[in-house]
C-alpha cells in the first residue's frame, strides 16, 4: 500500500520548501503510522505527512503569551522551537471535516498534551506556481493569538 | 525603461470627480457597525436628552419633536473592549453598567403630546377591493397601501404616503394619504404614527361627505371614549401586520424593511422601484460619447481577426504603429455595453426594490426625480451569489448610464480611464441582509474593451517637454518571434495567455 504519486510529489515539494526557504531541520516524511510492526503491515496514513523543526518557535498559545507577559518584565517570546506536523495539500484539492479528523487522529504526539490544549498541525498549501502558504489547524476550538 | 510609459503611475491619478458622496455615507453607516464594536450604551444613554430624569417610560413625552435629540452615531465614542474575560470585578462592573444602560434606554415607550403625531388606520383590503386585479400601471402600488392617514403632518409625509387620485369621491378615504407597509412601520418605529385597528368599517372612520357632520363618530363613543373606534396598536402588532413574505400584498419582507429604514435613518428618501420612474432608453443607439469614440478609434478594431491555426499571432515584419499589432492580438471577444439590450426582465431577489434619492430641497413625492441609486435587497440566508445571467438581468433593468462628463465620470482620455471604469455603463446596489445585518455592494457593468490603452502608444510625442525627450520617440515595432503564440492555460475560464516578444526600437534622432 502506498499513496498516489501526486501526494508523494506534493510532500516532496513542501519538504524542499521547508528545508530551503524556511530553514527547517530534522525534516522527515511519513507515509505510515509509527509502530514496531514490520514495514509491510504498518497502517498507511490518510495522507503523507512531514515532521520537522522550524528555526524558531512558530506557535505560542495565547494563554502562554499572557503567562510570558506576566512572568517577564519585558515581553520576550520563547524562542525554543517545537517539532511541527505538516500536511501538504494542493490548492485545487477539496477536503472534508471527516478527512481532517482522520489526519488528526493519525497524529502521534511525542509527549502528552497539556491540559486544555489540543493537537495542531501545519497545513502546507501548494499552488501551481509552487508558492506554498502555511496555516495552523487546531483540533478543536482554540482562541486566536493576540498580537 | 522601454516600457515605463505603460506604468500607470506615470500618469498622474485623475481627480475623482464623480459625486458619490452618498455612497460613501452608506458605507459609513456600515463601517460604524462593521467591526464587532457594539455601541457603548452608557455613553449613548447619557447623550440623550432627558437622561438626567432617568430616561425611560413616562419621561418619553418630553422627547417630542421639538426636543427630539439629534444624536449622530459618530458623535458617541465607543468603549474599549477586551480580548476575553479575566474574571475581574472591574470587567464585570463595566459589563453590568453597559447592560443596565442598554436596559434603561430600551425600556422607553413611545408617547407624544396631542397634535404632535399622526394617526393612521389599518384597512388592509380597502384598495385590494376597490382597485381590483387590473391595477393601472401607474407605479403607485395601490393594492399595497394599507394604512390611511387622518391627516398628513410634518416632514415625513413629504416623501411618504400618497393620495390616490382617480378614486370615486363617494369612496370613504378617497382624499386621504395612504401608506405602504414599510412607510407605516417606519413611522410607527419613529413614534410619529399612532397605528389603529378599526373596530368598525371605513365609513365609521372616514364618513362619506354627506355624513360629515360626524354623527357616527359620536354614536361610537362609549366608556372607552375614542378608543372604542379602534385599538391603538403596539410596535409588535405593527410588525405582525406589515412583515410578510415576498409577494404578499400589503406587506413587506423584513429584509427589505430593514434596508428601507436604514436608508431613511441615514437621511435618504426612498420609494418603491417603479419602471415608470426610469427614463426610456435612448432611441439613438449611439450616444454622443460613442460617436466621439468612433471618430478616434478604427472601426475594424472591435472584430477579432481569424488567425492561422498554428500561428503566428502577429505577422512578422515591420509595423508602423502599435495599433496594427494590438489589432491582430485582439483574440478574445470583448463585452460592449449597449443601451438597448434584449435581456429578459430580472426575476427573483435580484430585482431593483427601491429607488433612493439624496435629500434635496423641492423634493415632491408626486413628481419624483431620477433616483440617485437603485437598490436590490437579498436575504443572505436564502440567496446565493448571483450568477452572471442574474446580474446581467439586474443591471440591464437599470437605465443606460455611460461614463461621460454628464454622468460625472469625466471625459475622454487616459486621465479619466479609472473614473470611467469605476462608473461603468450601468450600476446598481445590492443590499445583502443577514438577520438584520446589512452590507451594501455596488455592481457596475464595465467594459475594459472600451479602454484602448494602446492608442496612446501611437500618440504624437508631446512637444517641448523635457520628459518626452527620447523615450516617446516612436518609430516602429518589429515582431521577431511569435510562434506558438497562444497557449491555453487550464482553469474554468479557458484563460488565454499570449506569449509574445515585442521589441521596442528606439530610433535616435
Amino acid at each position, binding site marked *: 500500500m502506498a499513496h498516489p504519486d501526486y501526494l508523494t510529489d506534493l510532500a516532496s515539494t513542501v519538504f524542499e520548501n521547508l528545508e530551503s526557504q524556511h530553514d527547517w531541520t530534522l525534516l522527515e516524511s511519513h507515509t505510515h503510522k509509527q509502530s514496531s510492526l514490520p514495514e509491510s503491515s504498518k497502517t498507511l496514513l490518510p495522507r503523507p505527512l512531514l515532521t520537522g523543526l522550524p528555526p524558531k518557535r512558530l506557535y505560542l498559545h495565547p494563554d502562554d503569551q499572557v503567562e510570558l507577559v506576566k512572568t517577564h518584565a519585558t515581553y520576550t517570546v520563547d524562542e525554543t522551537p517545537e517539532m511541527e506536523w505538516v500536511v501538504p495539500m494542493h490548492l485545487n484539492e477539496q477536503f472534508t471535516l471527516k478527512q481532517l479528523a482522520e489526519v488528526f487522529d493519525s497524529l502521534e504526539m511525542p509527549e502528552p498534551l497539556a491540559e486544555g490544549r489540543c493537537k495542531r498541525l501545519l497545513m502546507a498549501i501548494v499552488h501551481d506556481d509552487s508558492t506554498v502558504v502555511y496555516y495552523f489547524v487546531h483540533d478543536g476550538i482554540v482562541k486566536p493569538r493576540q498580537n | 525603461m522601454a516600457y515605463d510609459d505603460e506604468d500607470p503611475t506615470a500618469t498622474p491619478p485623475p481627480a475623482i470627480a464623480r459625486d458619490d458622496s452618498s455612497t460613501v455615507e452608506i458605507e459609513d453607516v456600515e463601517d460604524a457597525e462593521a467591526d464587532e464594536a457594539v455601541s457603548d450604551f452608557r455613553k449613548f444613554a447619557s447623550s440623550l436628552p432627558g437622561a438626567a430624569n432617568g430616561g425611560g417610560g413616562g419621561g*418619553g413625552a418630553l422627547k417630542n419633536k421639538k426636543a427630539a435629540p439629534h444624536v449622530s452615531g459618530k458623535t458617541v465614542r465607543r468603549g474599549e473592549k477586551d480580548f476575553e474575560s479575566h474574571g475581574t470585578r472591574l470587567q464585570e462592573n463595566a459589563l453590568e453598567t453597559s447592560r443596565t444602560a*442598554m436596559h434603561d*434606554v430600551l425600556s422607553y415607550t413611545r408617547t407624544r403630546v396631542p397634535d404632535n403625531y399622526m394617526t393612521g388606520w389599518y384597512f388592509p383590503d380597502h384598495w385590494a377591493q376597490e382597485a381590483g386585479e387590473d391595477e393601472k400601471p401607474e407605479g403607485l402600488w395601490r393594492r399595497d397601501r394599507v394604512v390611511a392617514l387622518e391627516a398628513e403632518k410634518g416632514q415625513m409625509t413629504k416623501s411618504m404616503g400618497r393620495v390616490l387620485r382617480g378614486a370615486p369621491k363617494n369612496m370613504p378615504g378617497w382624499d386621504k394619504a395612504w401608506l405602504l407597509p414599510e412607510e407605516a412601520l417606519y413611522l410607527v418605529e419613529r413614534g410619529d404614527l399612532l397605528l389603529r385597528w378599526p373596530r368598525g368599517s371605513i365609513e365609521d372612520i372616514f364618513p362619506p361627505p354627506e355624513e360629515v357632520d360626524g354623527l357616527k363618530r359620536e354614536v361610537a363613543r362609549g366608556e372607552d371614549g375614542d378608543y372604542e373606534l379602534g*385599538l391603538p396598536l403596539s410596535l409588535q402588532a405593527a410588525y405582525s401586520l406589515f412583515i410578510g413574505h415576498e409577494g404578499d400584498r400589503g406587506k413587506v419582507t423584513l429584509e427589505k424593511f430593514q434596508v428601507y429604514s436604514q436608508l431613511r*435613518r441615514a437621511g435618504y428618501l426612498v420609494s418603491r422601484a417603479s419602471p415608470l420612474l426610469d427614463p426610456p432608453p435612448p432611441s439613438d443607439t449611439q450616444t454622443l460619447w460613442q460617436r466621439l469614440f468612433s471618430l478616434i478609434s478604427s472601426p475594424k478594431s472591435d472584430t477579432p481577426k481569424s488567425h492561422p491555426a498554428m500561428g503566428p499571432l502577429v505577422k512578422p515584419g515591420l509595423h508602423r504603429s502599435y495599433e496594427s499589432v494590438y489589432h491582430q492580438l485582439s483574440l478574445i471577444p470583448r463585452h460592449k455595453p449597449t443601451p438597448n439590450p434584449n435581456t429578459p426582465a430580472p426575476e427573483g431577489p435580484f430585482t431593483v426594490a427601491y429607488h433612493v434619492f439624496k435629500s434635496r430641497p423641492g423634493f415632491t413625492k408626486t413628481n419624483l426625480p431620477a433616483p440617485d441609486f437603485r437598490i436590490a435587497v437579498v436575504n443572505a440566508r436564502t440567496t446565493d451569489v448571483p450568477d452572471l445571467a442574474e446580474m446581467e438581468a439586474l443591471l440591464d433593468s437599470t437605465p443606460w448610464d455611460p461614463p461621460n462628463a454628464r454622468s460625472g465620470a469625466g471625459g475622454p482620455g487616459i486621465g479619466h480611464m479609472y473614473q470611467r471604469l469605476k462608473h461603468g455603463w450601468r450600476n446598481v446596489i445590492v443590499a445583502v441582509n443577514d438577520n438584520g445585518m446589512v452590507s451594501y455592494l455596488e455592481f457596475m457593468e464595465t467594459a475594459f474593451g472600451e479602454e484602448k490603452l494602446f492608442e496612446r502608444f501611437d500618440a504624437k510625442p508631446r512637444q517641448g517637454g523635457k520628459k518626452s525627450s527620447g523615450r516617446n520617440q516612436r518609430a516602429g515595432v518589429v515582431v521577431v518571434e511569435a510562434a506558438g503564440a497562444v497557449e491555453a492555460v487550464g482553469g474554468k475560464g479557458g484563460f488565454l495567455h499570449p506569449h509574445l516578444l515585442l521589441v521596442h526600437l528606439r530610433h535616435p534622432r
Partner: protein
Amino acid sequence: MTSSSPRPHVRISKAANRYLVFDIDDVMYLRRNHNICSVFVGTMPQAPQQSAFMGLPIELMAEEAQVLVEKNVAFVVDDSNYHPARIAAAGPQDRQYLDAVKTVTSDAQRSMREQTEARKAMYANKGTTPAAATTTKNSPVTREAPEAWMATLTTSGALLTPSPGQDEQLASVDVPASYPLYAHLQDKGYFMMPGLRFGCDYNVYPGDPLRFHSHFQATGFQWNEDINLLDLVTGGRLGTNVKKSFLIGGRVESEEQHKDNTDATRDVRAFSIEWAAM
C-alpha cells in the same frame, strides 16, 4: 436573575420565517442567562436619525430560536396569523391592554406637567420667563383626555394572552444546515452574531459583545461535505487581518466516534485555522 423561580417563557414572534423578540426584559434575560444577544433591528425612537444605536425588536437567528425552544425557555408563535386574529377577536383582554395604554399616556402627561412646573419655577427664580412661556404656549399640556395623547406600546402585552382553552399557535423553526456547530458553540457559552460581515455563518464572541471582541469567524459544514481549500485560505487570511481564528466544524457522522455522547451539541467536531505567518 439567577433565582430558581420559574420565569415566564420568552415569547418569540415569528413573522414570515424571521424571529423577533419585543420585550426588553426578555431580551436582557436572554443576554444575561443564555448568552444570546442577537441584532437590534428597530429604529430607536429617541434618536431616529442614526443607525449606530438600534432599538427593539431584536431579530434572532433561527438557530437561536431553536436552541431556546430546545432548552424549554422560549416558545415561537406564528404572529403573522395569531396576532391579527387576537386583535380582531375583541374581548376582555382589550380592556386590560387599553388600561396599559392609558397608564402610559397619563404617566407621560403627568411627567410633562411636572417638567413644565419645574421649568416655570426655575425661570421664576431667575426672573426670566421667555423659554417657559414658549413651552406652555406651544404644548397643549394638561387637560386633554388621555386618549388625545399618543402611546405606542412596544409589545401587545395582554392582548396576546390566549383565552382559556385557546393555545397560541406554536410555530416550527427552520434551522440551517450549520445548526449543529451553532448549538455546540452556544452550549459552550459563546455569543454568536450573524457572520455576514466576515464572510462566515457566525461571528463568535467569548462573552457579551458589549464588552468583548470576537474570537472566531465560524462556518458549519456537513461531515462529508467538500470544502475548497481556497475557502479555507480566504477564511484563514481574512481572520488574520481581523485578529480572529477561522473555525470550521460540523456534526460527526460516525457510529464509532463519540458513541458515549447522546447530546447532539457535543457530537460536533470543530477545527480552528490561523495563518502561520511563515
